[in-house]
């Protein structure tokens, strides 16, 4: 990691970070994002995340990026899991327990079928 010594250095790092993101998006990899703020964790996000990782391992899946994020604001729907298949919009699932997480990985991530009954809607 290089130290940033000028504004140009900072801009360079921004360009690189943007490029990395674009590569990630165009790689065909699916992103699974778990809300891991205090609210998410209190609602059971750790178990959900564990179930996601276990399912991915058990099913021997590759090309999936699991990452965490903060609290998106919809506390009453926590734990929230967002799935972004590259090129498609994010789908947000609410109140995801470990069993639901398993289904989301198997049906949405693998087969590409959005599970609409779990989805957060207006």
């Amino acid at each position, binding site marked *: *990691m290089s*130290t*940033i*010594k*000028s*504004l140009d*250095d*900072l*801009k360079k*790092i*921004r360009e*690189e*970070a*943007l490029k*990395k*993101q674009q590569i990630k998006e165009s790689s065909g990899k699916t992103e699974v994002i778990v*809300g*891991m*703020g*205090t*609210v998410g*964790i209190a609602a059971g996000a750790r178990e959900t995340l564990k179930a996601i990782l276990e399912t991915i391992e058990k099913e021997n899946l590759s090309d999936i990026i699991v*990452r*965490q*994020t*903060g*609290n*998106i*604001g*919809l*506390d*009453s*729907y926590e734990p929230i899991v967002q799935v972004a298949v590259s090129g498609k*919009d*994010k789908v*947000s699932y609410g109140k995801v327990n470990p069993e639901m997480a398993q289904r989301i990985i198997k049906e949405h991530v693998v087969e590409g079928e959005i599970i609409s009954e779990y989805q*957060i*809607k*207006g």
Partner: protein
Amino acid sequence: MAYFRSHVLVSIDPICIDKGAYELIDALHDELVKQGLIDEVQVLETSRIGDPESEGPDLMVYPEGVHYTNLSLEDVPFLVEEHFLKGRIAAQYTREAKEIADKELSAPQAKEMRIVLKNVGEIDPLNIEEYIARDGYMALGKVLTEMTPEETIQEVLESGLRGRGGAGFPTGLKWRFIRDAEGDQKYMICNADEGDPGAFANRSVQEGDPHSVVEGMIIAAYAAGASQGYIYVRAEYPIAVRTMRIAIDQARSFGLLGDNILGSDFSFDLDVRMGAGAFVCGEETALMASIEGKRGEPRPRPPFPAQKGLWHNPSNINNVETFAIVPQIILNGAMWFANIGHEKSTGTKTFSMAGDVKNTGLIEVPFGITLREIIYDVGGGIKEDKKFKAVQTGGPMGGCLPEEFLHLPMDYEALEQAGSILGSGGLVVMDEDTCMVDIARFFMEFTQEESCGKCTPCRIGTRRILEILTRICEGKGKPEDIVTLRLLCEQINENSLCGLGKGAPNPVKSTLDHFLDEYEVHILEKRCPAKICKPLIRFEIIDGPCTGCTLCARNCPVDAIFGERRQTHVIDPDICIKCGICEQICPYDAIEIK
């Protein structure tokens, strides 16, 4: 009330007015009359819609959620005919389809506008590169290379940014005070001691976008001439402490903290200091005492922290949210920010919505939005569609506002006039089953316990109020109690040393003002209308519905229910502890609370 099938919201922010929003409203109205649709379509005014780059005038059509922009008066007849008469969306005037899809995805937050929470829930908070990819630290770069400290202060001043911790003091002015103060060592402090029960906005920002706080603090330090900063977080926020520490380490290893930041001659470093969770340590002088390792007690001001703060050096304290906004103001300009919001309250504010509302959680809305819009449109209304009773704004030192105040635009002044405060942005919504005397007692219990005890009005006054309220809730209230309560409220407010004592009477005072009838029923009739205060209620089994199934008798924890099988049972009020288990368990709804 007339039923409208469509609502047209026309944005009347300064830019849109400039581009003819009012003329557009008139033209819409005339055209709707002409086409005979005026009884079906309602035209309303609203604050800014959409992003700052939009051309304006903007309008939104609900329930479809279609956003039309850049409309001229000539377009109105065609638009009205197409959209409202023929029911087709006039695509040539809409914003890009993708943006509409995004809006639908976040439907519960349609009235929201995210500046502070821009990155929260979007980026990985533990990865500085994701923040940089979203223009992170670009504001710092701009400040250090293009702006003098004085220009930075001027920019923040012109944006109208006011302290988000609750008092609403202009941030730029605060920075100027410390810049002008004499001293070699100056400190920049971030108040992350979010102590209000039910408030969690600052925590979410720290956990979800810690670098925005770090960047805001570096910019503030540059403007103020500070070389060391502290983030004061409560130990109850372990995840926030961890993310902040990781963010600081990352920023330091990238050279964004430390000596000669971005090749300039400006140096600044940051540390996290943990508080032990005393509520009073959110008060700035108590907070500084706590950082110094002393007992967390406030002291009289002046001298103000800008003159004599941390270790007697000039210091500046801002809230997490205030710092997180700063980079956005620098990047987008003071005018952009000043155009959002309402009158003297510019920009957006986060609110932690809790209580009896459907969508609890964190929201960010522009100032000027009404309480009704927040509770019903953003919050989705009251749980189980019960009736709204009151909303408490601003944490335990805020007031409880009844339905008549729902039209109130949310800003610093309007809330203060209504007898409440904006505070840290806590919103506790209460439904019809809430006892307001009990609520006042609950908040008093909190402030009484959190009073540091340094000054007499707060230490003893809050205790006296709590005693009286407890007595009223137990059915032992006296008629003169109301007068005594009012007197105590007034004296505690006037004579307390710090904000905690000054604000402590607010829940009591506001409930006395707006819900006096409930106090009177408790005192005079010894009744609790909401059936919450246990000493004032009793459980009874109604003769008709009771089948004598014995379920209640078997589940009563104190064996207070008697009766033969297949015969109506009876509760012995002398044994009953009013736990409510029988009422929950009875399959025939035969238990009545009186």
